[in-house]
């Protein structure tokens, strides 16, 4: 059995006195798409932010590529290959689409930057059409594509995406999920996404159920029952 690429164990994160994550064990294998499901307030965003370094860890370890990174700065984790696409505030609003992408490739060497941005345009042709437009004038769906595009451009090995489907029309959700699958195949990236949308079952290899800061289940796709997942979203699993 191969070592997981990213491993979180006994992770505790608190906001003041409120504990958001209570001793979480979580892992991701190379080139997997892993979903984190759970109702609002379950700690999905907190888990992703703790991995990316946006929130401090109280106790526990985060291991990535053989390094214990739980006390590393955001930039150092980014350099090692982790990139978080937050749920909100995931674009630079007053910059053009093109400029947003240019900023995202800042850590890559000059030779590969253009290729990375070209690949984003290939995946999301609409961004090419809108490349000169200011980012905050894009539609919600296009802004989401830009945010994911910035994640791709960043060339990070692991993309952590916080609830990409929120605010998207059902058709767009399907399209976005298909695109994520294509990105995984094209780039050999590993993708972790938190989701409340049941369509996550169509793309995730594995699904973690998170509720009230604790892991409720960790199942491969084939073992998952849609009803179990639906119950989790309603917060009624005991």
């Amino acid at each position, binding site marked *: 059995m191969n070592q997981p690429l990213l491993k979180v164990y006994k992770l505790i994160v608190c906001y003041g006195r409120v504990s958001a994550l209570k001793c979480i064990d979580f892992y991701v294998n190379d080139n997997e798409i892993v979903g984190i499901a759970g109702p609002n307030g379950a700690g999905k965003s907190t888990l992703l932010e703790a991995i990316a370094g*946006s929130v401090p860890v109280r106790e526990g370890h985060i291991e990535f590529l053989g390094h214990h990174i739980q006390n590393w700065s955001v*930039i150092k984790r*980014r350099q090692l290959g982790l990139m978080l696409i937050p749920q909100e505030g995931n674009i630079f609003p007053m910059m053009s689409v093109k*400029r947003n992408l240019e900023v995202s490739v*800042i*850590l890559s060497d000059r030779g590969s930057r253009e290729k990375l941005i070209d690949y984003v345009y290939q995946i999301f042709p609409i961004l090419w059409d809108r490349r000169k437009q200011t980012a905050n004038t894009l539609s919600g769906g296009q802004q989401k594509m830009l945010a994911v595009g910035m994640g791709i451009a960043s060339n990070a090995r692991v993309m952590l995406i916080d609830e990409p489907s929120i605010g998207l029309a059902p058709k767009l959700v399907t399209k976005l999920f298909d695109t994520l699958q294509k990105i995984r195949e094209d780039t050999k990236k590993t993708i972790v996404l938190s989701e409340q949308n049941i369509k996550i079952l169509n793309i995730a290899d594995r699904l973690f159920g998170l509720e009230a800061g604790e892991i409720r289940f960790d199942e491969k796709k084939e073992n998952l029952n849609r009803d179990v997942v639906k119950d989790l979203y309603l917060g009624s699993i005991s």
Partner: protein
Amino acid sequence: MLLNGIITGLIMGGILSLPVLGVAVIYGITGIPNFAIGVIGVFGGFITWYFLSISIGFAIIIGVVACFIVGYVVQRILLTPISEKGGDSTLFFIITVSLGFVFEGVIRAIFPRPNISLELPRLGTITFAGFSVEGFKIIALVFALGTLAVIRIMEERTEAGKSWQATSQNLKLAKLVGINTTQVFSIASGIGCALACVGAIFWGSLYNLELSSGWDLGFIGFIVAVVGGIGNIWGGMISALIMGMVISFSGYLLGGEWQSVILYFIVILVLIIAPKGILGSERSL
């Protein structure tokens, strides 16, 4: 008189615009109001005065570089760590005002005189429509406009400029995409303090530099920046020019004693009508 008023206004506006730009760059990028920048600028002015006998160019460079370093270090070891811990504006007000008093004390302790005047070369006279003005007086304005242009070009062309823009628009995301925002903050603070120093040097060449001049420079800088839309360098520049005109014309029409009454009355009026300033206080470069 009209032309006379306009030229005096441009001179005033030019000098005002330097600390205003300093405030705007620092606040625009870091989101931290630093009320000490005027005093730090005057500190640089005193350093320049001290080295004046060696060579004017050298003295100015020493003063400006010293201010850049002070701004950089203060941001790096004091202000950025506090902001990471979630310090609010009130805390920054107290801390940076205290810092200003520290630097005022340092100036008093180091330099033998509390009151200096900086002799700058006159740089000839410029005659325009029968009115002549000494060249050095409009250099402040030229310098401010040049600085604006340089910042703008850097934003368009350089990676550093893009990083500043990104940091100012979305700090959290800037970190996530891999920008060293701590360094961006330090450089912004250094540039802001350096601009305040250039402002202090021009101020000291037209008037006198006193220990307390830093507070005048800093607070006027802040007020004018807020009127323009704090953190917005274009708004700050426009606001500085308007305020320069206000000072100039109120002086001509009503006499010098009414200048500050008119100036601050207009400040209050503008802020009642447009609380976010002339161009809005979107933190942006």
